[in-house]
């Protein structure tokens, strides 16, 4: 068997590839398809923006709730009831209701 000259074969095949003229035919209504895709994407991107905003808000709320939960869980309960935050809060909230009773 004769030895194959790979360099020459490479040249021949490259020349064969050069002779192939690229086909530039365009599918029917291709530009319409692209424009429809762009329109579809624009509509979808509005929805995506809203969805993204809601997700961010939800994550922030969950994070805030977790921090509040952690703070209330790890803060030791005050021994003195007079310094109880919830009691203070209730007193402040009901201050206006309690006021008429206090005045003679």
């Amino acid at each position, binding site marked *: *068997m*004769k030895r*194959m*000259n*790979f*360099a*020459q*074969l*490479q040249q*021949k*095949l*490259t*020349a*064969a*590839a*050069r*002779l*192939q003229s*690229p*086909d*530039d*035919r*365009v*599918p029917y209504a*291709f*530009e*319409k*398809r*692209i*424009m429809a*895709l*762009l*329109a579809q*994407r*624009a509509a979808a991107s509005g929805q995506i923006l809203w969805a993204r905003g809601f997700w961010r808000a939800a994550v922030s709320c969950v994070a805030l709730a977790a921090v509040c939960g952690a703070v209330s869980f790890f803060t030791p309960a005050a021994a003195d009831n007079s310094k109880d935050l919830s009691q203070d809060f209730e007193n402040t909230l009901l201050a206006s209701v309690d006021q008429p009773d206090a005045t003679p």
Partner: protein
Amino acid sequence: MERSEAELIAAVLRGDRASFEPLVAKYSPRVLATARRYARRESEIEDIAQEVWLKAFDKLKSFRGEAPFEHWLMRLAVRTCYDFLRGHQRNRESSFSEISEPEEDWLDRFVADPGSAAEDADAARALVNRVLERLSPEARLVIQLLEIEDRSVKEIAELTGWSVPLVKVRAFRARAEMRKILARMAKDKYL
């Protein structure tokens, strides 16, 4: 009156999406011809072209108008084709045992007398496509641009975004890879 390319691009950037359509109509033949150099199935070719146009629309702000729009678009097209090749690397792992009879005949003629094997034969084209499909994405892109489209190293660097030395290194490796594939093909056929 027909609007110029610059006017169309400016209109698209102002938010007039419809002005993009004449650009798509004008340059789609070139984009599809480029895609056909790297993909074989018509569905893949259309996917590549579609991807090129979607990217072109998204990145139109980055087009500064210093070079013609066509050059900018071709850069996008070549890079999209490269991404496609990288995404379809698995397809190139197969043996040469399935080469057709005319391709085998062409190879036999080449071995017997290299001058008698014509480059314009269909078998030669089929064979070169088979070899190109087995190259790595980098090698395929370089061989296509440098050897087949006859572009300069500088042009390839601009099209691909690679540096000039990198193109040279990849061209050297690509030629070696192609020879290796041809050697494997000969081994599969004759041993």
